[in-house]
């Protein structure tokens, strides 16, 4: 039996090394786009915060140097055991065009980035990249934090709730057309017999943290913007600007570009900004927007009600029982993905993790790891006293149920057999191995199994050989 014990500590340590979802996207952009993006101080600051700690320190160390410094000088500051991390950091910064690679073996920041980021730290300039505050208006004062939070929460949960209850009899509120299109476009939902249904990617999405979900969607939005020929620099610049804004303040739309004004509607649909009415000339960022580059929770209280501490609400016992202190329909619906629910009380849902419920989740494309990490991240404070956090028996069993489903692995292809001689067999096998299409071989039986894709090549090879020997 495989030992699948996990302690929450190593899990956390692993998570830290995963780079931010936005970075691969940025690295795929042209140097020109990146340099244009770095013209705005707010973009530099926000991007800086998405980087790894070592990368941030390298940028800071180089920021105030006027001339390039030799790599060897910088290397003397690196401890031997940190060497690998440091080299990786330098490489990432190179790909982001923050630390352009050059032939002279010297390190110097991208000049545009350097100027903008210096300006971000010292203030000044005329870029207005941190958002132009709207004039105070006595007739319509700014929204208070509470109503902003509840607006963001309502928008966000509408999207998630729509996803989780698609394909069931429930008829939740539909999000706007723009959101539906984005969900479809990102492959989180797809049309099945004329009805929009959640996909297995969608199920996995539901178990992510709100922060990851938000960036997932924004990333899809960026891809969409690329297709729509929108200027990525404008789109990203606006998102980054939102992340540096102050919660509870109103900003003017006057200084926004055409692209950015067009984004207002989409961002309103996602709950990132609030506007009194669509034509309003002012907008307020919500907590979803202002926490984009931070670790603080993007949603005020993940369920917006008074049912106890919201950072964790699930108690899992060794007998597979699950007690979830929530009255939030979305959380209940998400739990329902892998828990068979038994009783429902005003502030409590009771269910148990069973073989059937987990198999249903696995069939939906959710993995055992995702179930376990969801349970961990939403564990009730009371559970946090346990070490390991979740009962090991339950964790192991969920993983075993997953293994059980994969007892049979099938690969389509061709079985090559009845070779005339051993030499013949080895000759063809050698060729197939070079193509890397061999799935199984047995020399004593003189046969091997090749993939479907490799068949045409092998067939051609054998025919050419046969023709050659005939002549």
């Amino acid at each position: 039996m495989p030992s699948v014990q996990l302690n929450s500590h190593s899990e956390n340590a692993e998570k830290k090394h995963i780079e931010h979802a936005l970075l691969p996207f940025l690295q795929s952009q042209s140097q020109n786009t990146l340099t244009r993006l770095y013209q705005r101080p707010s973009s530099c600051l926000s991007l800086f915060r998405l980087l790894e700690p070592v990368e941030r320190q390298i940028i800071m160390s180089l920021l105030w140097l006027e001339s390039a410094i030799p790599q060897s000088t910088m290397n003397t500051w690196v401890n031997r055991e940190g060497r690998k991390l440091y080299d990786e950091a330098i490489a990432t910064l190179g790909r982001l065009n923050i630390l352009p690679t050059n032939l002279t073996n010297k390190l110097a920041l991208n000049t545009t980035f350097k100027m903008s980021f210096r300006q971000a730290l010292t203030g000044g300039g005329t870029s207005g990249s941190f958002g132009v505050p709207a004039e105070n208006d006595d007739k319509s004062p700014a929204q208070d934090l509470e109503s902003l939070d509840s607006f963001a929460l309502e928008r966000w949960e509408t999207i998630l709730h729509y996803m989780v209850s698609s394909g069931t009899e429930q008829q939740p509120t539909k999000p706007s057309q723009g959101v539906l299109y984005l969900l479809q476009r990102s492959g989180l939902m797809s049309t099945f017999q004329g009805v929009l249904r959640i996909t297995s990617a969608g199920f996995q999405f539901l178990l992510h943290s709100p922060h990851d979900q938000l960036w997932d969607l924004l990333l899809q939005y960026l891809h969409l913007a690329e297709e729509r020929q929108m200027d990525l620099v404008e789109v990203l610049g606006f998102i980054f600007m939102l992340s540096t804004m102050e919660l509870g303040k109103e900003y003017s739309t006057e200084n926004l570009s055409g692209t950015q004004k067009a984004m207002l509607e989409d961002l309103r649909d996602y709950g990132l900004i609030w506007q009194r009415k669509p034509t309003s000339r002012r907008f307020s960022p919500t907590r979803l927007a202002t926490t984009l580059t931070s670790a603080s929770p993007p949603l005020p209280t993940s369920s917006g009600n008074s049912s106890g501490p919201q950072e964790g609400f699930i108690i899992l016992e060794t007998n597979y029982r699950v007690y979830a202190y929530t009255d939030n329909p979305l959380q209940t619906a998400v739990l329902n993905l892998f828990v068979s629910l038994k009783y429902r009380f005003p502030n409590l849902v009771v269910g148990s993790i069973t073989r059937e419920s987990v198999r249903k989740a696995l069939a939906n494309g959710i993995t055992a790891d995702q179930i376990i990490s969801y349970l961990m991240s939403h564990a009730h404070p009371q559970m946090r006293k346990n070490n390991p956090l979740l009962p090991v028996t339950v964790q192991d069993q969920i993983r075993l149920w997953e293994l059980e489903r994969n007892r049979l692995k099938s690969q389509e292809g061709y079985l090559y057999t009845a070779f005339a001689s051993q030499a013949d067999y080895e000759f063809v096998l050698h060729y197939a191995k070079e193509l890397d299409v061999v799935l199984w071989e047995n020399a004593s039986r003189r046969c091997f199994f090749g993939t479907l894709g490799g068949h045409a090549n092998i067939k051609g090879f054998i025919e050419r050989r046969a023709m050659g020997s005939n002549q």
Partner: protein
Amino acid sequence: MRAIKGILLTCDAAVKQILLIMNEKESFIIEDLDDHHVVIKAEHEWRVRQDLESELEKNTYSVD
């Protein structure tokens, strides 16, 4: 030399035995390769998976 189109199933020894017994009822195995591999006819894959599932299901017990 012959090339036969089919599906390579990789499985554990226990599942392999169940497959062999199922094969006696209705033949679908093209070639029995070794303890962990067997080649079957492509068109039977879905049915074999279903049958195997229900066979394995007979050996599981739930608390309810």
